[in-house]
């Protein structure tokens, strides 16, 4: 039977490969010798203070990352890591203070001399620009460049991907068509922004928005020089207004920045600009990137999403002084889809709250250190609106489930025997599928049977983001994570809970909460410029959402971040989701 041979050989060969794989991994378990000469600054040293404070210039700062920047065009980027990194070559009117921890949430003047002068009715914001602002060709940077840059947000056919907050606030009806279709000679036809002179810029809001300055601190508020605007190609070579300029950019591979000699330190109190060069290497193998960080080939992970499980075990065991256990602003949650029966019934949703073993989910994500603390509020602790309100006793029971109460709620829901539904978990998020399986095992104890459907995270906006698909596939729960665009209740919560933010595609109100009371609180909180009042309104919203068991947060995410021992001026910035403040970093040779 000669034709039988090749197949058989294939099978035997494959078996040998498995054996080889098994035997090599068995050998690979040995730990590297710890030489005990770790010069790290200490575990958690960069959380609330500056590590290795220094003003020494020179050297090359080396970033590595799995994920490339979404865009280097300031009006088109929406990744937090890009916003953090972009400050090397992009300036905005106001920006987050270069201070460790929560102090970074304060807005300070960057291109502007300071925060805006706001009129009494909260509708007019006036900024004065600093002297000596320049572009990378040495030309003067004026208020008109800022207006032009912001106008690009309106050109939604070319400038895609960035947040639309400024556009929605200044021109909610979308009357302006963007600079590329602008008939006026200087392309500055947007009426809501005025530039009375080169040093002054005035924003006229149709109705007040207490977070307007936050919008201007995002890269979308950055200037672009009109004759250097290459439209959709601008991402390949953004024209620098900061201390560095792009030397070369190979999308998906590498980025190199060199000093922008036209930038004047006197015009910029924010950026120390210590390294001579900055390099970013994009490499898809996370485990390998962690190894190279620990071997000293790179200094810091540009993505800032924390080390892999394998990397963090080695790091915590052998290089404890070189890592920080960073508190991010991310909340891991399960949305309870109100459109899916029987989760339209509040008691069935409450049963899920009681039946969930939060401590088990926490352990699956890596425990209190690598996973994070158990969540009790829909808001992360850094967002005004967080409170210790805990009606289900989740924190009081240290996260353990209360099956008796869960069964009682199921009875009140009319489902004494439990119910069945499906949950989604994204495969590209480490341990999300594992966490969903853990939840599956926990809820089963109360009779709630859930089936885990793993989905591709890159496709989630058309799967969990589409109420139609969610209905067709019978999803009753979606597991995901959420972090704020900017550190206020609006910047965090509006896409999640406002019924007017339920979209056919790209919907993040995954629970499909349609609560007029919640919508009303958003309107009131956004209209006020009184931060204390906004905070109390968001606290009220949290209570309403939790009482209704609308959306189940379970972890305030933490991660283990590698802090290269060469780095100087390192600290974690709450404004950038706990990432190190890249623009302050320097390197010791």
């Amino acid at each position, binding site marked *: *039977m000669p*034709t*039988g041979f090749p*197949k*058989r050989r*294939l*099978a*035997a060969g*494959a*078996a040998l490969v*498995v*054996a080889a*794989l*098994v035997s090599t*991994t*068995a050998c*690979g*378990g040995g730990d590297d010798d710890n030489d005990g000469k770790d010069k790290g600054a200490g575990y958690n040293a960069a959380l609330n203070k500056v590590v290795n404070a220094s003003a020494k210039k020179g050297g090359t700062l080396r970033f590595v990352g799995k994920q490339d920047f979404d865009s280097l065009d300031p009006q088109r980027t929406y990744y937090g890591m890009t916003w953090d990194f972009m400050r090397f070559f992009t300036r905005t009117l106001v920006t987050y203070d270069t201070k460790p921890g929560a102090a970074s949430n304060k807005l300070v003047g960057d291109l502007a001399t300071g925060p805006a002068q706001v009129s009494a009715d909260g509708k007019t914001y006036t900024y004065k620009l600093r002297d000596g602002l320049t572009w990378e060709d040495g030309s003067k940077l004026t208020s008109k460049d800022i207006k032009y840059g912001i106008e690009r947000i309106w050109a939604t056919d070319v400038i895609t991907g960035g947040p639309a907050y400024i556009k929605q606030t200044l021109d909610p009806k979308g009357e302006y068509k963007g600079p590329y279709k602008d008939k006026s000679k200087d392309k500055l036809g947007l009426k809501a922004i005025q530039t009375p002179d080169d040093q002054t810029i005035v924003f006229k809001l149709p109705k007040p928005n207490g977070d307007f300055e936050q919008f201007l601190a995002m890269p979308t508020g950055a200037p672009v020089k009109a004759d250097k605007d290459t439209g959709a190609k601008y991402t390949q070579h953004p024209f620098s207004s900061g201390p560095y300029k792009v030397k070369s950019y190979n999308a998906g591979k590498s980025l190199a920045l060199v000093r922008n000699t036209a930038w004047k330190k006197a015009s910029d109190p924010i950026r120390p600009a210590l390294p001579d060069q900055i390099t970013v290497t994009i490499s898809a193998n996370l485990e390998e990137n962690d190894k190279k960080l620990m071997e000293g080939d790179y200094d810091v992970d540009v993505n800032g999403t924390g080390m*892999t*499980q*394998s990397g963090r*075990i*080695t790091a*915590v*065991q052998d290089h404890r002084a070189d890592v920080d256990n960073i508190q991010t602003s991310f909340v891991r949650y399960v949305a309870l889809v109100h459109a899916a029966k029987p989760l339209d019934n509040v008691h069935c949703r409450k049963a899920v709250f009681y039946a969930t073993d939060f401590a*088990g989910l926490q*352990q*699956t994500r*890596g*425990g*209190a*250190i*690598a996973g994070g603390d158990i969540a009790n509020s829909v808001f992360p602790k850094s967002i005004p609106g967080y409170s210790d309100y805990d009606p289900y006793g989740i924190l009081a029971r240290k996260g353990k489930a209360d099956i008796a109460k869960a069964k009682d709620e199921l009875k009140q829901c009319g489902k004494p025997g439990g119910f069945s539904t*499906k949950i989604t978990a994204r*495969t590209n998020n*480490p*341990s999300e*599928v*594992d966490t*969903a*399986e*853990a939840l*599956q*095992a*926990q809820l089963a104890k109360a009779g709630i049977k859930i*089936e*885990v*459907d*793993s989905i591709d995270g890159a496709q989630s906006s058309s799967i969990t983001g589409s109420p139609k698909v969610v209905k067709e*596939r019978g999803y009753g729960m979606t597991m995901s994570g959420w972090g704020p665009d900017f550190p206020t209740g609006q910047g965090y919560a509006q896409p999640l809970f406002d019924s007017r933010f339920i979209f056919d595609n790209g919907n993040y109100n995954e629970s499909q909460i349609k609560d007029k009371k919640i919508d009303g609180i958003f309107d009131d909180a956004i209209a006020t410029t009184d931060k204390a009042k906004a905070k109390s309104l968001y606290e009220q919203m949290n209570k309403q959402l939790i009482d209704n068991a609308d959306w189940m947060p379970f972890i305030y995410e933490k991660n283990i971040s590698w802090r290269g021992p060469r780095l100087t001026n390192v600290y974690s910035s709450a404004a950038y989701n706990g990432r190190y403040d890249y623009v302050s970093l320097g390197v010791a040779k």
Partner: protein
Amino acid sequence: MTAPLHDTTADAAPTAPPETGGGRKIEGRSLKQIAWHRLKQDKVALAGGVTVLLLVLVAVFAPLIVSLLGHPPNDFHQEKLDPLTNLPQGSWGGVSGDYLFGVEPNKGRDVFSRIVYGARISLLVAFLAAVVAVVLGTLFGIMAGYFGGWVDSLISRVMDVLLSFPQLLFIISLVSVLPDDLLGLTGTGVRVAVLVLVIGFFGWPYVGRIVRGQTLSLREREYVEAARSLGGGSRYILFKELLPNLVAPILVYATLMIPTNILTEAALSFLGAGVRPPTASWGGMLRDALQTYEHDPMFMVFPGATIFITVLAFNLFGDGLRDALDPKGTR
């Protein structure tokens, strides 16, 4: 293989035993007896066969074995994990008297129980897929070989097309677009059915080619000629005369096909196209183990070794079976 494989023991009743020095009787023995005799002498094949039998028993009695020696396969025992690293406490991946193969990192499920339950999925998919392939392959192969002409050309071309089809990619894409509920099955049932049908469907041309080749040579034999001249119809000749003589090669090929199917199923589960979590499968365990293989190699060793042993056992048994059934064999 010149004689039909009919059980001829009865016909070969001993006449007068010839006088030989040792007093041993010389009997006429059927092919089955010869094969069994040869197989018994092949210790390696026998060991493979015993292992296969054990694995089948493990799969069949999984709930009993787990209730005696393990913990329910989907129960989390996170108290068995180190809170800092999330790896199993203790050495060797948490191996202990209570947890024979240790526990999974992060989840703390019993690795032994999952391997035992994983055997069900692996063997079920492999066996059923082999059955599908053998049925289809025999049917089309025998038709192609016997009828020849345009039937042969058509079937042979179809087999060529299927053999050159990138089946792994096809299965992965198929699994991701298929709905959850199909043919009255749900969840794991759908995935198992899809795996069986697809692996079996892409496997039949291998069987088909062998059967066709054998049929081509058998149909010219005298006993077939005789049957035909006595007025036997096509159906009679195909199923009563030819098929019994094809049993041996088909049986051997099926045995050798099962390990390939096990590896295909493991590969698909490894790539995320296998059964759904939390249902245990060996390939899925290997994928989970990748995250932490440097720090918890045992979690990769156990399912890896299980796949290795299973595939090896089937191959050794299949090889032995082939040698035993081959009349031209030297042993």
